[in-house]
């Protein structure tokens, strides 16, 4: 898994490539949680290059969402492949993670 991070104004955009599972979710956690703790509250996760997410990956995203909630922050997912969207549906996480089509739509939603 590879995470490309950029920051445009006060929005943190994480583009995640590869597999998010028990072997890689810890890396994402290390890149995400300290940034939230440093008072960043707006995150876009671009999943266009994400191939697969397991329960370990979902767990890390939920931990981040829970933390962001404490700071009234927002995390929007975009460009999510159908299979991965279905995994979120199966896990009951669609109400927690807003999913939009592309990064532009994510930026619009996060600024609402």
């Amino acid at each position, binding site marked *: 898994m590879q995470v490309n991070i950029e920051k445009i104004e006060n929005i943190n955009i994480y583009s995640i490539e590869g597999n998010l599972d028990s072997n890689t979710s*810890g890396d994402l956690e290390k890149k995400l949680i300290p940034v939230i703790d440093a008072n960043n509250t707006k995150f876009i996760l671009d999943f266009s290059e994400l191939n697969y997410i397991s329960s370990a990956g979902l767990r890390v995203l939920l931990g981040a969402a829970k933390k962001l909630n404490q700071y009234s922050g927002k995390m929007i997912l975009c460009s999510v492949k159908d299979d991965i969207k279905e995994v979120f549906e199966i*896990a009951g996480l669609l109400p927690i993670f807003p999913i939009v089509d592309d990064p532009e739509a994510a930026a619009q939603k996060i600024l609402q």
Partner: protein
Amino acid sequence: MKVKFWGVRGSIPTPQSSVQIKQKIKRILRKISEKQLHDLPAINRYIDTLSPVEAGTIGGNTACIEVRADNQLIIFDMGSGIKNLGNAIMKNDQKTEGLDIHIFLTHTHWDHMIGFPFFSPAFFPSNTLHFYSGHPNLKERLEVQQDYRFFPVALNQMGSKKEFIQLEHNSSINIGNVKITNFPLYHPGGSFGYRVDYGGKSFVYATDSEYKDLSGKNTKNHIEFFRHADLLVFDAQYTFEEAIHKEDWGHSSALVGIDFSVQADVKRLALFHHEPERDDFEIENILKKSIDYGNINYPDKKLEVFLAIEGLEVNL
């Protein structure tokens, strides 16, 4: 090795309600009508094809599993399901010279020991019950459960001989040629998983366990414990989302069970410790979604996922 489920429900015995039974009857009648079945033999044949979810029940008794291997009688947990197991032992196994019955406890929460006072073989002086637990003071815990304030028959009034063995954590014990290894699990008050190895087959019983950190470094010991199991019985009380919100309640979800099973090359995964608030159709729906999850994430794996159902026997 034969594994039989006598109690599969979590937390509290959960009988079917009248509303649930009526719902099933209406569904069956509707299907009979749709299929235009009119004569009784055809209707009977059709009903016999229906699953326990449709025309029976997944089961409301709490945790109890029977294992038979190498002519040994081994029981895991003494939830309310052990009452019916005791009756079956009385009918099929009881001999005048007595029986040796080996009982392993995951922990002593009510849903895992509430059935013991109703376990008929425990009343026969010719029988010997061998209790195994990773927890200390098991005898005292059973005595408390049968204190006169809570139950009319004290532990020492049950006529069988009783032996209490406290297991060293992560150790193995042999019963005949059956090797049983324990493994501590994360649960309020602590719980223990058990792995049974016999004749090249293995069965793992891992209920009442929460997995908060799913990273590889934290789960590798669990994965090794489950490695190459022919059957893994796994705590799937919650949905994934519920398990996160009920942090420290000590239970897990089917999705975690599937991920672990794939990593450990488990052959068959039984979802166990069903949530008492859910009816059979809701539990079946969890199974369907879990299978979808497995098909999406692991299309090349041949893991079989199914529900632990009261009365189900699995031959390994």
